[in-house]
């Protein structure tokens, strides 16, 4: 219970931090007081009309950002801030996180579907094609991380890294996991839902407060993902001198920077090619990661 405010504090800080990092990475420094820029952008969207399209699926259109945001919160709920300090101390934390990833695909698809417009619809369908195999990758590397911990609980995985971080022990894990982060937060090279070649994809018909809600949900998912990655691969709350939550926040911020940089600096290949690359190159790599983790755990 005490961890719930912590979850929302981390989410709020992460959303703010990621929004600022995005501006820095893209060299778009307006206005000069960059720290307050997200607030001003939010005010702009709140003062704009929320457009409705012809015959939309209004209920699902409004539900999509809510589900997306709620899933980000659910994903963060299994991440421990300190030993025992966690919203939902589930033995099957990894399984819950996997379910959140899968349902995110549904939320993004619904967002594209509901507008009854061609560009968002293509975005929604295309995202499913990339989201499914990307999710597979992440589950393999997460299971690899669970091997030395002998548990599916995120807390146990963090504790298993007292001697050595999983990033070192399983070098393929984090890079593969980051790909999923880019995919489920619709970012840069893995942004097949809200892409610019579709004029904004699932968000192409969305304006004003609705767009703000969608943007916040996207950044919330990014933050939740970074916290999960920090816990599973970077030792989460473990660290000297500082208290656990501070270490988790620092590592989350570091991953947010990496993700933002990758998002701004990598080209997006056409979806069929990405789908083939995921199945034929990256999935075998995740098998390899599993083997490395398995052999390492037995030694």
């Amino acid at each position, binding site marked *: 219970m005490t961890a719930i405010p912590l979850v929302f504090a981390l989410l709020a800080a992460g959303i703010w931090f990621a929004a600022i990092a995005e501006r820095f990475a893209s060299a778009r420094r307006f206005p000069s007081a960059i720290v307050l820029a997200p607030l001003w952008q939010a005010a702009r969207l709140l003062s704009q009309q929320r457009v409705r399209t012809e015959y939309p699926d209004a209920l699902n259109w409004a539900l999509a950002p809510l589900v997306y*945001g*709620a899933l*980000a919160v659910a994903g963060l709920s299994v991440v421990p801030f300190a030993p025992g300090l966690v919203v*939902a101390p589930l033995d099957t934390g990894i399984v819950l996180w996997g379910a959140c990833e899968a349902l995110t695909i549904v939320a993004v698809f619904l967002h594209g579907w509901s*507008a009854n417009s061609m*560009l968002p619809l293509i975005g929604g369908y295309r995202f499913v*094609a990339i989201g499914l195999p990307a999710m597979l990758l992440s589950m393999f590397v997460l299971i690899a991380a669970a091997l030395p911990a002998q548990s599916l609980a995120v807390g146990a995985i963090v504790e298993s890294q007292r001697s050595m971080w999983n990033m070192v022990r399983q070098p393929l894990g984090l890079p593969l996991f980051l790909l999923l982060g880019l995919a489920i937060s619709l970012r840069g090279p893995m942004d097949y839902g809200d892409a610019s070649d579709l004029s904004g994809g699932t968000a192409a018909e969305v304006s004003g407060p609705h767009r703000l809600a969608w943007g916040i949900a996207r950044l919330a998912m990014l933050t939740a993902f970074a916290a999960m990655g920090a816990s599973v691969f970077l030792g989460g709350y473990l660290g000297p001198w500082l208290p656990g939550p501070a270490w988790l926040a620092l590592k989350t911020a570091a991953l947010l920077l990496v993700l933002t940089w990758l998002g701004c600096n990598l080209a997006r290949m056409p979806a069929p090619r990405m789908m083939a690359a995921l199945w*034929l190159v990256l999935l075998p790599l995740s098998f390899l990661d599993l083997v490395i983790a398995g052999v390492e755990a037995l030694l």
Partner: protein
Amino acid sequence: MGALANLILAMAVGAALLLPMLWWPMQLGGASGQSQQVPFLGGGSQSAHAWQRFHIRYYPMTLLFIAFEMEMMFMYPWAVVYVETGIKALAEMGMFLSILGVGIVYAWREGVFRWQ
């Protein structure tokens, strides 16, 4: 039980924080006419509604995906008992994965990953 209740509470709070943005009361400017609701296509128009039986070119891929999802269900318990069982577990999962790997190669040969 407590964990589940906390989880649901946190999700509900998250959704509740976003809800006002979808029910935002302050709106400047004029009314929304029917011409505003026309889908955006850069000045173009569509002759029919966008909702359709979309040709999902990747449907064979989704079948392959299901095979891997089922495998994932076996992997969860496997991961927990892996260290106790030792080398035998590694060999078992290696066999399982190589069978699925052959599946990927077969799917590739059949052109499953070619968007058609």
